[in-house]
């Protein structure tokens, strides 16, 4: 930004009132500054309000018992915790990451390194896939998987994987584009094949950016509830480690406890909401931190993209 913008040229003119309407223009200017500033403050204020409210409610119950116990069989009873949901979230999101990461990275490699008609179509459809409602993704997995194999952690993982896939493709694609072409040229000049160049030069160079993108997608999938309602279904009773059985997740437990009328269940749900927000924010901030430390792709990755 050049410094000339910060000057107010008209201040140096002798009398403001010699120009008709000058006062009105200056007043409009100040007013609009104030309006824009107020809207900015209000927006940040909403974020602070939400975080403080969730923290305030959540801290009332969050504690060792909440993190190490399963909910009581009768939801109106106090006590218990969401350990089964936390474990379920890690299992389903883990499955989702294992599915979406290799496919997403490979697809991004195709888009950036090979190009052509298929790549153009895929790029456009990836953007469309980001916009497909996640509950529709859940309905798809229900129709393709749950109908045959029943509600399960795997089904939840597939649904979350489909949610993550376009996000991973897009962030990886951006990172690969930022790898300087000179690196590829140098590799080819040394006699490396295209596959060798991509695997041993391009991917390592972009790796921290790619990891950042995957972490953000992971955080996003962790917070999803809608597709899991139709696939993992939830299980409020005990810890389930078998991914072929119906499984609870943190988000599902927050939802099911929040919509009961019981104070005790809502207290658990608030503690769960705080836990979930904390996990998601830690992942998001860690991803930003990694992105900010690497030369490739400082600002590009961490903002929500259309």
């Amino acid at each position: 930004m050049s410094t000339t913008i910060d000057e107010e040229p008209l201040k140096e003119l002798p009398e403001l009132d010699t120009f008709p309407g000058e006062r009105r223009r200056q007043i409009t200017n100040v007013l609009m500054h104030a309006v824009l500033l107020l809207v900015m403050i209000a927006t940040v204020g909403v974020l602070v309000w939400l975080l403080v409210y969730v923290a305030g409610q959540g801290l009332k119950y969050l504690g060792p018992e909440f993190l190490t116990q399963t909910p009581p069989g009768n939801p109106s009873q106090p006590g218990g915790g969401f350990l089964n949901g936390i474990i379920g979230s890690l299992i389903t999101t883990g499955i989702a990451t294992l599915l979406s990461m290799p496919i997403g990275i490979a697809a991004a490699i195709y888009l950036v390194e090979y190009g052509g008609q298929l790549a153009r179509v895929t790029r456009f459809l990836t953007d469309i896939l980001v916009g497909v409602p996640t509950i529709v993704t859940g309905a798809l997995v229900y129709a393709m998987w749950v109908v045959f194999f029943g509600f399960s952690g795997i089904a939840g993982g597939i649904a979350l994987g489909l949610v993550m896939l376009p996000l991973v493709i897009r962030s990886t694609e951006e990172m690969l584009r930022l790898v300087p072409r000179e690196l590829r040229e140098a590799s080819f000049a040394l006699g490396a094949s295209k596959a060798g160049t991509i695997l041993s030069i391009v991917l390592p160079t972009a790796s921290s950016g790619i990891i950042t993108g995957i972490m953000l997608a992971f955080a996003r999938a962790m917070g999803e509830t809608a597709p899991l309602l139709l696939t993992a279904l939830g299980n409020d009773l005990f810890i389930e480690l078998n991914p072929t059985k119906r499984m609870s997740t943190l988000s599902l437990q927050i939802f099911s406890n929040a919509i009961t009328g019981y104070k005790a269940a809502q207290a658990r749900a608030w503690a769960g909401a705080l836990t979930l927000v904390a996990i998601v924010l830690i992942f998001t901030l860690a991803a930003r931190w990694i992105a900010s430390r690497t030369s490739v792709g400082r600002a590009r990755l961490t903002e929500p993209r259309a």
Partner: protein
Amino acid sequence: MTAELLSPPDTSEGSSDGRFTDGLFLRVMAAAALTVIAVLVATAVFLLIRAWPALSHYGPLSFFHARWAPSEAVATSSTPNPYGILQFIYGTVVTSLVAMVIAVPVAIAVALYITNLSPAVLRRPLSSLVDLLAAIPSVVYGFWGVFALIPALGPIGRGLTSVSGIPVIGWLFQGPFFGYSVFAAGVVLAIMVLPIVTAICREVFDTAPAAEKEAALAVGATKWEMLRIAVLPRSRSGIIGAAILGLGRAFGETIAVTMLIGNNVLTIPHGIMRAGATMPSVIANEFTEANQPFHLDSLFVVAFGLLLLSLLVNMTGKRIVGRVSEHIA
């Protein structure tokens, strides 16, 4: 956009082995790219297959009325169709419009402030804070909406419902307002789509040429006039594209809306202060408990409709934003 693709020089002497690996590698990568296409096609096909029994039993057009009463479904009779979905389409579109009416002006203001007015040191932190709104899970928004936002909206809602004399606005804001409403869902949606709309607006505003901004200031424009002359006019189509993409996002939002909208599936609500339902909310509420004849199939009809709606909106938004960024490049 399509940068020149690099390939190693074709050295046919020697390693045919290396080129075989290359070909295999290419095929694996292409297969991964094809998955994206396969997923979209599979979504459309599988939803349609599951929706088909209801569609063929009742006839596609019979779904276009506004009463959803699964308990009245009889397996042997096809008229009347108890599964009307018009009120869900209405709820989806209207909650999203309420959200955009709030979010778009706010996003423009925030993006203008961040790109042109804020001190340079604050630009990145402010952008990050707005982006954090996108990281909060939907279920948390819904929960917070029920206990914090709805009570806070109470006075506003009651104030709005008291304007009853004026023709259109009076209808829009007619009471009674009990909190759970299209309006409350719209406000939470506005907060949820704000980051994405702001991010696109910010990118669009950033492309306004510095020379034009300085020229405006040089001929004596105030800073606000500079924004109006040099930044906003060329950003119009970008803002429209951002709004449409935000709209697409709002269409599909499920859990927060389900918790706030009041889930009235029987009629199109009068105005926006009363309870309604959206396409995602009815699916989330009834999917696992659908036990009436053609109930689940009809929910798939809703899901298929939602898919079509979101594809339409997102493609339109993408076209506009894509064209804008090509202009920029």
